[in-house]
């Protein structure tokens, strides 16, 4: 079920985002291991962050690793849940249930470090 959650049509968005020179569009991939409470927590947390901080400029795909195990090697995913920020560069990885919002915002460059 989870892997069907696609908030935007991915391929088109990705191309659009890649072409986006300002780097405003975020390409996000969330790898989860089935519908565990941890997976759901991560999805909820991420959706909340995206809606609050990225509003209309993100592309999120949630992937169930049991369904697509072949993807794991290429993406070097070991832990679950893993969030990968593919664009804008640099690529970043977040593991865990994404409960630490501040850390994620910092990692996504949505929060300036001098804000502290």
């Amino acid at each position: 079920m989870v892997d069907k959650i696609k908030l935007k049509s991915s391929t088109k968005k990705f191309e659009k985002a890649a072409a986006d020179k300002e780097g405003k569009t975020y390409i996000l991939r969330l790898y989860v291991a089935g519908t565990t409470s941890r997976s759901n927590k991560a999805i909820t947390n991420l959706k909340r962050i995206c809606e609050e901080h990225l509003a209309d400029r993100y592309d999120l795909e949630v992937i169930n690793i049991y369904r697509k195990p072949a993807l794991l090697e290429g993406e070097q995913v070991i832990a679950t849940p893993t969030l990968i920020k593919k664009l804008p560069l640099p690529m970043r990885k977040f593991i865990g249930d994404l409960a630490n919002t501040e850390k994620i915002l910092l990692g996504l460059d949505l929060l300036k470090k001098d804000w502290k």
Partner: protein
Amino acid sequence: MRKKRIKTGFSPGSRPKCPSGIKGFDEITGGGLPKGCPTLVAGSAGSGKTLFSMEFLIRGALDHGEPGVFMSFEENATELAQNVASLGIDLEDLSARKKILIDHVRVERSEIEETGEYDLEGLFVRLSHAIDSIGARRVVLDTVESLFGGFQNEGILRSELKRLFRWLKDKGVTSVITGERGEKTITRHGLEEYVADCVILLDHRVTAQISTRRLRVVKYRGSSHGANEYPFLISERGIFLVPITSMGLDYEVSSERVPSGISRLDAMLGGKGYFRGSSIFVTGTPGTGKTSIASAFAEAACRRREKCIYFAFEESKDQLFRNMRSIGIDLSRWDRTGLLHIHATRPTFSGLEEHLIAMHRLAHEIRPKIIVIDPISNLTEVGDPLEVKSMLGRLIDHYKSNKITTLFTSLLIKGANEDTSREGTSSLMDTWIQLKDIESNGEHNRGLLVLKSRGMSHSNQVREFLLTDKEIRLLNVSLSSGVVLMGSSRAAQAAQEEMDAVRRREEIERRKWLLERKRREKDARIASLEVEFAAVEEDLTSSIRMEERQGKASIETRKELAKLRKADNKTTTR
């Protein structure tokens, strides 16, 4: 793998085993790694963990029809392929044929932000996917401990690793997990706590600038195993372990005899030579002809069409050929036919154990009937005497159990190690030939003595050992008033004896002649006496007869007279 297993005393037991394919390892563990269970292979950097586990996978894939997954946490597929190319394995080809799957897990801490609770389900899924995609029966996790560098939460990592090992066991794959050697624990992060079935320790030591690799089975639940440290070698043909430390004295012996190549020496050894499968020790001070005896033995073996390995630690192949040609032994001929295999190295070329392994490996590959090690004493340069002795013991046991007749030469330094050699290695040897350098009257001669030879009556005499340009000869020595004479003094003595003999013969002749003369003289005298006697006898007899006749006649006359006088007989006769 060879069919005939070396007896090591480790039975497979009830536990199912998975042959590792590593030469020697399966013998010390009675069959290999625990089947369907994880095994921990620990060792410091460069101790051969990756190669050990890679060999396990490759052998499984090639020899046992068990595909394998190599999950590498350090090197990527290209690097691994380069590493095993040195073992003569084409990893890319094996990957292409789906025999081996390499999954490189890269964990960069700097790339990862930890934002709450997580697990390693991703790793499980990856591994499971890899196993299923090629139907793997074997799995290697090469330094799973690298994960400790990638994740901050050690608690999660530990419980996940524990779960992983359990999962591997449930999956029924035979797995090898490698780990860095720790200071107090076997592995740096104490993985041995979770992998409880079998723990193997690899070690890499350097003593006197010579490195030796060793392997030890620390623990093997439910199976007997060799507890010693076994040296191993990473050669161009893979990992090679020497499994013989624990050999028992239960090999079969043969009463077949092997000629020594020197007929007089055979005569000294009960007339037939050495026993097949025995160990022969030839000791001697420098220049006493140890190599010559060894070469004669090797050559004789080749003449009988028996394979022979000659380990030369002093001379190069060509040097040996040239030198032996000078005493009429042509070894190069046999080298060309392939019956003789000469392995010439300097002892310091590698560690003692590596020499041992090389000796094993060659014996394993060539399967000779005869092995010559010339000289064994040079190996003390790379190991202390105790080590050399233990190595010799292992080597001899190994060769004996394979019915290989082995000849060792050993250099004795006068006074220095004569006694230690006697105590140290004598007990291991069945036949001991001592070559002596006997110096007297300004010359140097070689003597040969069979000091001992188990199980046969042997000569107790010293023979003079001559190296001529055609052959090796053994001559009787001379004994003169209790002194053994050799060389020119022996020759002088022989000449003297010859003269004495001639003189004696002449004397006898002379006396015989004298006796004969006396006898003739006696006979002549007897003859003349007889003639004389006969003359006298005749003379006397005739005179006796005459007298008798005259006596008769006078009585008659007197009777006539008395008659005439009519006298009384009584008065007249008075």
